[in-house]
């Protein structure tokens, strides 16, 4: 029962809030309350899973293997908690300023439902359904604001991501055809028995589908166009919460279900990750509008996740999870803080910028250090050089952006309210806390990575 509790809270809360006028403050704050309740339920579930091991719940009491199973392990819970934190912050941020469309709070709740569901499900097709719930919410959110530019951005977003969703659906059908199961644990059990060719093909389709979500190098073309047009809260949601589908999907379907194919494709992933880092960094330096710089920065940052994943092993997976978590928080902070004014906003932005560049007091340092460690252990010193280069590039574009936004251009896009400032300060403190006390997150990522099988030799 407890696994379904966050989903139930978000589903019924979302239904109720969607009927009300979300532009009114009380409705908006009720939606924030619902998000906080779901977050609390997920954290409770996480504490339980941490103490007693993974939990499984068969929906509607079917026998194991027949019906759909919800499965909560630490990997899923970690991503669910981070996504809910990001969504809550972005929703609260928008409510504390001015909600422009009555459907906004309801949509954020539905997206929370989709994300939590897909992180906690144990069934591949159910994963697709939750994935679509969050994507549909994201399609509408991308057009939030409804200026001509945002409508165009939403159109690009839908066309490209629908392509990704269809590819993923085809991948699931292929998995079902090859193994005869939809249950992810059983697919993982049988995946090593699939013939080489269909297995590689299926793994590639799934990889492409998630790379489109993540905005990895050859599939990144939609990302700047969409992020540049959207409002800061939506950009934070897309890059901080929705992109988690990509990183979680790559870790779950790559490391858990297709470990052999992940190992075989490691070289390709290493190359793509490297290109992403360099390309994202160089492009970001050449841009001026803050959302565009941050969009290219996201392309660069996911490269590190891919590199950690391609090195693999428990240390590599730990680094990938740690980096994904820190990156989600960084991007949320930066997108939100860049739209505010004043020295407080400037200071929080600086924390986010240092974190992206990997400067010690901020959390991003430990993400980078984890990637460092695995690359040294793996005997690939050039990756260390690459991480340094990526950090240097991000330092340059972040400083350019800081200078342009907080030193030169003092006019605010919109009202800088006290509530909005409080939220970015809270996220900034969270990032600093991760940097000062990295041990809890480090051991959490380690335990989350331990649910994945060791890499096939």
């Amino acid at each position, binding site marked *: 029962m407890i696994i379904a509790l966050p989903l139930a809270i978000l589903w019924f809360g979302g239904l109720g809030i969607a009927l009300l006028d979300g532009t009114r403050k009380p409705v908006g704050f009720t939606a924030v309350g619902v998000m906080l309740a779901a977050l609390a339920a997920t954290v409770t579930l996480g504490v339980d899973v941490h103490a007693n091991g993974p939990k499984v719940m068969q929906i509607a009491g079917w026998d194991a293997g027949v019906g759909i199973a919800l499965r909560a392990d630490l990997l899923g819970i970690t991503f669910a908690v981070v996504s809910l934190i990001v969504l809550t912050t972005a929703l609260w941020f928008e409510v504390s300023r001015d909600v422009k469309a009555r459907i906004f709070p309801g949509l954020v709740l539905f997206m929370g439902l989709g994300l939590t569901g897909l992180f906690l499900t144990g069934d591949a097709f159910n994963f697709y359904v939750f994935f679509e719930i969050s994507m*549909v919410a994201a399609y509408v959110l991308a057009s939030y604001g409804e200026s001509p530019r945002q409508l165009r951005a939403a159109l690009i977003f839908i066309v490209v991501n*629908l392509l990704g969703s269809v590819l993923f659906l085809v991948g699931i059908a292929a998995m079902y055809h090859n193994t005869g199961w939809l249950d992810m644990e059983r697919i993982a059990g049988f995946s090593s028995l699939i013939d080489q060719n269909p297995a590689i093909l299926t793994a590639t389709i799934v990889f492409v589908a998630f790379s489109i979500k993540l905005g990895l190098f050859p599939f990144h073309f939609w990302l700047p166009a969409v992020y540049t047009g959207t409002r800061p809260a939506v950009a934070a949601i897309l890059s901080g919460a929705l992109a988690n589908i990509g990183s979680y999907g790559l870790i779950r379907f790559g490391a858990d279900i297709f470990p052999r194919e992940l190992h075989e494709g490691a070289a390709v992933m290493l190359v793509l990750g490297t290109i992403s880092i360099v390309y994202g960094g160089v492009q970001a330096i050449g841009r001026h509008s803050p959302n565009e710089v941050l969009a290219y920065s996201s392309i660069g940052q996911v490269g590190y996740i891919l590199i950690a994943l391609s090195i693999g092993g428990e240390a590599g997976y730990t680094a990938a999870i740690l980096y994904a978590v820190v990156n989600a928080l960084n991007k949320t902070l930066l997108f939100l803080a860049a739209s505010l004014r004043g020295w407080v906003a400037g200071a929080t932005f600086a924390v986010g910028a240092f974190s992206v560049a990997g400067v010690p007091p901020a959390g991003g340092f430990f993400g980078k250090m984890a990637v460092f460690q695995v690359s040294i252990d793996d005997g690939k010193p050039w990756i260390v050089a690459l991480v340094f280069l990526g950090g240097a590039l991000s330092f340059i574009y972040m400083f350019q952006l800081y200078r342009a936004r907080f030193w030169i251009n003092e006019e605010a896009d919109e009202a800088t309210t006290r509530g909005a400032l409080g939220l970015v300060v809270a996220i900034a403190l969270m990032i600093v806390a991760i940097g000062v006390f990295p041990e809890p997150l480090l051991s959490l990522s380690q335990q989350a990575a331990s649910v994945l099988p060791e890499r096939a030799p």
Partner: protein
Amino acid sequence: MTLLVSLCVAVIFGSAAYLMLKRDLIRVITGMILLGNAANLFIMAAGLRQGSAPFVGSASETSDSLVQAMTLTAIVISFGVATLVLSLVYRVYDSHHSVDLRRLGSAEAVQASLDDQPTGQDIRADEAASLGVTEERDVGVSPKGRP
């Protein structure tokens, strides 16, 4: 049978990809809907097996009911998304008076040139007015009769 179905999927997928590369938005959307149908057919093909209706306890070989359930779900989802996309296309038409991707692209290019003023030399409102750039930084015709 398998060959026939795979040929069908291939043809539909190919037509969908062709349509999605067109400039007309309506064709792009048609391509997206076709693409969803190709995927549905592919799911059916993943469990292609001839047999009687799958009732509990039926002795003879039954067809695979799971792929049918999955296809049904996928059809519903693609319906919903198609509706959403069509309404969005209408809104785009409403604000740009065009569904031609070239027109939308040129609006985007104008927007980008507005955004890409070098930092530190951001054009001020009075300078902008003299350059013929309006305060409204969003390019496109604003929807008529809307608040």
